[in-house]
């Protein structure tokens, strides 16, 4: 009886490998693809994942060569600092997108958290920070509950939350900013402080990404996040409590947005009701550019780091160039995003056609 099979595209481990590209003998129902297209498919798949890294390297090289001010520690640290808060938001967005969903409310939640933290700052740093984070987590969890229990699409739920939270932020503050009290100096330190020369927001973002990476790769919860995005119904039938995973994911997104909001409030010295406007789109752009697919189930935290850095450095190059008006920057950003996504889409189709 014939038991030969084809090996898949992952690294071979333990099991006896069949020679790559060899067809199953006497196949009645599956003829293996010949060598060349399969190699191309694997290259395409890798390029799609690593493409962002390549782009990042190219862009950095270009920047270093053209602008002497680029490759300096102050500039680079600046870039990191400016993008660290977006990075936190993008991390949360990554997890949501991995489950096949989307979170349009992050910008508004960020503002709410900043206002709550500033509002509670009279009671000291701990209370203020916890309050802000709790607000974000709760709003995120509410998103998750509406999505799973009321079975409304994530796009709509988070859209509504975006509108409602922004409204609440504007309404509660009378459209004024809320000053951060001196009693909560810690918050100011979060936004403006440095440790060994590195801005605190950067450290926070780095820490968050590290934790996020470990969680996604090495915890059951992380595996369930991927499962939910891969095929939620199958995951349910396999016994996973998909709803709980989804609620947790949206809560985490809210929590991270809140984190960014608190840090931003610290940096600005006040919580502002208009903070975070448009950040959801920037976060989505960073996640997509990094290589994570909107359809869910594929991608990861590493890709998002690359995406955030890539977009941040391009913005930095625009500034260094000096002559590009903010308007043209907007145009270029949009064109770049489109270009990247088209290339990714082609690569992904090539990869799956022969895989």
């Amino acid at each position: 009886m014939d038991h030969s099979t084809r090996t898949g595209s992952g690294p071979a481990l333990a099991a006896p490998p069949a020679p790559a590209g060899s067809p199953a003998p006497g196949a009645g129902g599956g003829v293996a693809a010949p060598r060349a297209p399969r190699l191309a498919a694997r290259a395409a798949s890798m390029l799609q994942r690593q493409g962002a890294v390549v782009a990042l390297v190219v862009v950095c090289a270009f920047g270093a060569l053209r602008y002497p001010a680029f490759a300096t520690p102050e500039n680079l640290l600046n870039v990191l600092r400016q993008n660290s808060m977006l990075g936190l938001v993008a991390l949360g967005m990554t997890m949501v997108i991995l489950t096949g969903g989307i979170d349009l409310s992050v910008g508004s939640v960020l503002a709410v958290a900043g206002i709550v933290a500033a509002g509670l700052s009279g009671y000291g740093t701990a209370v203020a920070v916890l309050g802000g984070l709790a607000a974000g987590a709760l709003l995120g969890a509410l998103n998750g509950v509406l999505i799973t229990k009321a079975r409304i699409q994530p796009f709509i739920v988070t859209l509504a939350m975006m509108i409602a939270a922004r409204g609440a932020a504007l309404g509660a503050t009378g459209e004024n900013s809320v000053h951060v009290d001196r009693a909560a100096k810690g918050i100011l330190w979060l936004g403006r402080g440095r440790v060994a020369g590195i801005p605190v927001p950067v450290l926070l973002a780095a820490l968050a990404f590290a934790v996020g990476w470990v969680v996604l790769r090495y915890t059951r919860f992380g595996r369930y996040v991927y499962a939910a995005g891969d095929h939620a119904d199958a995951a349910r039938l396999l016994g996973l409590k998909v709803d709980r995973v989804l609620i947790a994911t949206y809560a985490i997104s809210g929590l991270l947005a809140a984190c960014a909001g608190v840090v931003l409030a610290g940096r600005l010295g006040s919580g502002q009701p208009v903070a975070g406007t448009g950040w959801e789109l920037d976060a989505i752009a960073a996640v997509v550019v990094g290589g994570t697919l909107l359809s869910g189930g594929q991608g990861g935290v590493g890709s998002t780091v690359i995406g955030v850095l890539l977009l941040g450095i391009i913005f930095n190059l625009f500034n260094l160039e000096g002559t590009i008006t903010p308007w043209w920057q907007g145009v270029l950003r949009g064109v770049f995003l489109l270009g990247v996504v088209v290339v990714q889409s082609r690569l992904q189709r090539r990869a799956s056609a022969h895989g």
Partner: protein
Amino acid sequence: MTSPPPADRHDESDVILRMEGIVKRFAGAVALDHVDFTLRRGEVHALVGENGAGKSTLIKIMTGAYTRDGGQVWLEGEPVDFRTPADAQAAGVIAVHQEIHLLSFRTVAENVWLGREPRRWGLVDWGRMHADTATLLQRLGLHIDPAATLGALSTAQQQMVAIARGVSLGARVLVLDEPTSSLAEREVAILYDLIRQLQAEGTAIVYISHRFDELYAVCDRVTVLRDGRLVGTHRLASLERLDLVCLMLGKARDELRQGTTGFAGHQAEAEGAAPLLRAEDLRRGQKLRGVSLDVRKGEILGVAGLLGSGRTETARAIFGADPRDGGSVHVDGKPLDARTPDDAIRARIAFVSEDRKGEGIIPELSVRENLTLAALPTLTRAGIVDRARQREIVDQFMRRLGIKCTSADQKIRELSGGNQQKVLLARWLCMNPALLILDEPTRGIDIGAKAEIQALINELAGTGLGVLMISSELEELVEGSSRVVVLRDGQNVAELRGGDISQQSIIHAMAEGSAASAVPAALEA
């Protein structure tokens, strides 16, 4: 005359699962009406019945996907009440469904251990996961790489992984729902080996299939359901196939003399009629490697072959649904280079896909709109759709095909499978096609509607339409076709005509590549 052998008596000693008096209702209709079912340790127990008989409902209750409205279930003598699939899985009752319910972007190992990943210091232990998976696969005799992405494996291998997962979950009862519907013959053999091994280990298996050969090859007993009721449980060794069919259909043995399909009474092949369609050396990637066939006016050409043999690809290449790499198509002597379905439609070819839900119906649109979708260009005058004419056509075809629905404005997704298929057929018939390509026209349809559709196809051929009929149901091919072309691996391997058409010769051709007594096309005058 001959009555089926007496039903099997209870044998208490090694019953692992007992279900008694199971009742399940849906919106007032009774899906299961006091059904009993017992399963013994180490047996392979077939569950058969036509669509709508209640098989999948019973299985879903067994595995916790549905809750029962009445009756009792005992597992190993203890009463159980599964509220979710997780409950059933925890108790060792596991289902492997027809559609692969696994995660295609994750590896084999991840899929096997999903939900119970081995951990070290709270974190997932990848090394152990791979090692344990490798051991498991080896024990089951499967040569699959644990690190392979599931989606990259063949359907057969994915199914094996699903079964391996069930085994690793400690399945005491394994339910296999149509396990071979996507497998090639060689892969079926692998599955049988696996089943026998599990049997030897004491696992009880419930096997759902409509393929009698398999049932008789691997199962010990069979339970027959009809219209939600238990007809009986028998040992397969003492039940003739014809008797089994009779039990399933509720017919007496002599009623089946005429044949089991609606094609009974098909006219002889239209000899000497001009070829309506001539396809030569069709090629497309790996799937089509040189298929040629021709269809004459008034004949039904059956196309047989296993999954992956290129039947659907042939049809789609002719219809222009997929671009072809090589070969030619002539309709009525004129060349046709169809790059989109529109080109083929203009040449009066129609195509009914095998995937009714995915490629057939537009679910939110009404019966009327679905029926006239392809005909819209002809129903349009000065940019506006002619409603009166549309109504006329819809009424005419609804009557002719006996489409049952509350009104033509009902959403098509609310109709039964059989009625949906009729609407799809009507969509093409109202275009007055010359050639009708049908891909599995009666799949997933209850037996009454099946016969109606088969009779309709027969009638259409009688009026001069050429029909190319792809089917996996051998009875359909045997009784309906004037000629049968058999494909394998994207190529022709046989053409059968007249008295040579039989289930055996078709199976032989599919398996061995040449029918026992096929007449090679080249020798034909």
